[in-house]
């Protein structure tokens, strides 16, 4: 996943704060490490039909503190395996954020609360990672996104932490 490309996809919106890892991928599935199998249970605690609704390249739009709770990397894996390419939230819990970036699974994008309010379920968005801008193609309006911190951008560019060469 490169950090300078344009992404286009449809929105799946869950307008709530504190969507936790037990909701994203419930405890009983922690024993599963097959990526495709995990995808079937993504967001099961909130919307059991989630995996069927998502197409490759879609976006998840949520409130604050997304991914709070456990360190289970199953959470970003399950979401990315359904096809979710980026998550737009007003804030992320720290381990979820790290896992999404370091594993190279999907992009955690921080946006203003007003953007989350304006974007509706089903809207088509285009995300320009070079200009840090999100265009709502359905509503013909745009919103800023918070640029990735320097190291995070480099890790995204490398395709995950294991591919990133750290210079001492």
């Amino acid at each position, binding site marked *: 996943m490169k950090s300078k490309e344009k992404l286009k996809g449809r929105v799946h919106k869950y307008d709530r704060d*504190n969507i936790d890892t*037990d909701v994203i991928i419930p*405890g009983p599935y922690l*024993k599963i490490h097959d990526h495709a199998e995990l995808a079937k249970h993504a967001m099961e605690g909130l919307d059991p039909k989630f995996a069927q609704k998502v197409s490759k390249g879609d976006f998840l739009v949520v409130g604050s503190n997304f991914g709070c709770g456990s360190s289970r990397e199953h959470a970003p894996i399950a979401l990315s395996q359904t096809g979710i390419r980026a998550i737009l939230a007003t804030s992320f819990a*720290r381990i979820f954020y790290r896992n999404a970036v370091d594993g190279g699974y999907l992009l955690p994008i921080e946006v203003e609360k007003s953007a989350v309010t304006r974007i509706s379920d089903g809207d088509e968005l285009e995300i320009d990672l070079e200009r840090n801008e999100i265009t709502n193609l359905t509503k013909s309006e745009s919103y800023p996104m918070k640029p990735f911190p320097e190291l995070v951008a480099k890790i995204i560019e490398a395709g995950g932490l294991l591919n990133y060469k750290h210079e001492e």
Partner: protein
Amino acid sequence: MTITEKILARASAKTSVSPGDVIFAKVDKVMMHDVSGPGVIKVFSEWEKKGKRLERIWNPDRVWVTEDHFVPAADRVSAENVITLSNFTKKYGITRHFKYGMGQYGICHTLSHEEAMVLPGEVYVGGDSHTNTTGAMGAFAAGLGHTDVAYVLMNGKIWFRVPETMLFRLEGTKPDYVMAKDIILKIIGDIGTDGANYKAMQFTGSVTKSLSMEERLTLTNMTTEAGAKNGIIEPDETTYNYLAERTDAAYTPVMGDQDAAYSEVFTYEINRLEPIVAKPFSPGNIAAARELAGTEIDKAYIGSCTGAKIEDLRQAARFLKGRKVKVRTEVLPAAQSIYMKAMKEGLINIFMEAGAVVGPPTCGACCGAHMGVLAKGEVCISTTNRNFPGRMGHVESQTYLASPIVVAASAVAGKITDPRDAKAN
């Protein structure tokens, strides 16, 4: 610099660091268990598909492993995960592997202190969010995911953004029937479940200093529930004495500077604190236990890294001694060593005579995986750390979080009870 900043500065070979700096810190210890371990192994197997090869790991002596989430094996997949983990530790020469059914084993965060796996001044990371727990030993302790632990196993270091430190002064004297659990629930209720996001939570003050090591560990354990990167307490005689009983390894304690800068300072007068309960479905959704008195429950659970250390079991036994439970009650000591201690102290007899089931150490029920999950509509009061929807079973079950004293008093009454209204024996 604060203690957190000083540990991270030393680990990144810098004379000083400031909040916001991004550093690569040298890791002293790394832990994985039977969920994160197979996850890490999966990361390596995906990586090897790209033509890479993991010949050796950075330092097998700094890695330790436990089996805690799905033991006793919940099903065939869980059993296979334990074998996957064992094969990995054998192949790469990791000797500190605490195995279920082979002497000492238990919940990772409990072993981290029971077995003195982590020492003051160290950088400790683990594949579990409650790795924060071990910061009570005066270490920098933070939870990571599978890829990050894989990176540590390869390189012996990991990146961190140096966190701002929030300082919590716990002053006064702790009233009877109030435990560290009540203090940390109160704090999470006040600052919110993202109130410490990306930050360090440091505890100090006369009450912190008077707390036993085990009670301090309850404070740092639940810093995770406020979103904190790490929880930490500067080491003192209590820490050193606790370690002296468990290890002769040498260590260099780190203390914060007198003029350290804290992003926020909170002072709590603990004299006035009452027993607290977190209602469904958030650890921040708190109320006084007394306000919830009479709430019907189906189960009382005393277990987990948060609430089944020896001190937790002793406090629960105060209420259960000579009484009978009115709801399904389970007691699962957090490690084999704690189970044995509880047996020698007569606590296991007290629990069983009260009618409770005493089970083997496992994370099973706390994360709703196995070993006693909740049915639709069931209500549980628990000494654990999370009560998100579906956390302990069906998505329409409910969990109230409380101290071991409150849970024991509630088990005896069959409904949520403030222990002050049902005095112990």
